[in-house]
């Protein structure tokens, strides 16, 4: 049971996060959502990796685009 302690500590010790790390953690979440969504949609499982990768890249680029657009709007209105 002692050998499990370091593994269990991963799920009981909070990680100190900054604002930038907070935003970077959106990327793995987008990848997970894309994999699950495409796994449910694709009839052929061999299509899943490519479809999920494409969707992940699209979503992440769209979020970055919206972020930049809102930031530029903020600078213009400042």
């Amino acid at each position: 049971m002692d050998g499990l302690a370091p593994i269990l500590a991963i799920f009981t010790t909070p990680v100190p996060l900054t604002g930038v790390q907070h935003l970077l953690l959106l990327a793995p979440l987008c990848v997970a959502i894309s994999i699950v969504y495409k796994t449910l949609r694709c009839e052929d499982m061999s299509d899943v990796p490519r479809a999920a990768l494409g969707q992940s890249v699209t979503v992440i680029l769209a979020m970055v685009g919206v972020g930049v657009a809102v930031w530029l709007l903020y600078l213009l209105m400042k």
Partner: protein
Amino acid sequence: MAKPTGEPSLGRVLATGVVSWLVPGLGHVINGDRKRGLVLIIVTTATFWGGVAVAGAQSTFKPRERTLWFVAQVCAGGHTIVGISWGQALAAQPGVKYAGFVAEDVAVIYTSVVGLLNVLIIIDALLATDPKYVRVGVRPPPQTRVSEAAS
């Protein structure tokens, strides 16, 4: 993919729904779609517990403070049952460390998103009990469609 034959019984549909809620993806495995089910089990488990690892089980589940988020977390079924039990056991210990607002936010979002994805997974598992169910995810390339139309 193994396709079941005939109309699914009510018992089978109910069992698929309950099993799929308890372990996201297990309903697909029971339906005979093992590869799809295993991918779903691995991805949802990694995402849920990855989220819990950010803030710790004691800071992730807060039914009174984050009620709507908790409703979404409950949709993740067995993961949430284990997580909330563990979190409550940790909270009862003296000197337990709680996560900051940012880490707690990330953990709640990750676990809630898994719960919402599990709603889709359950619906898909229930639909897949019908042998006539066909997925329409990826369109064939244009050349294939033209050749199909010609034939």
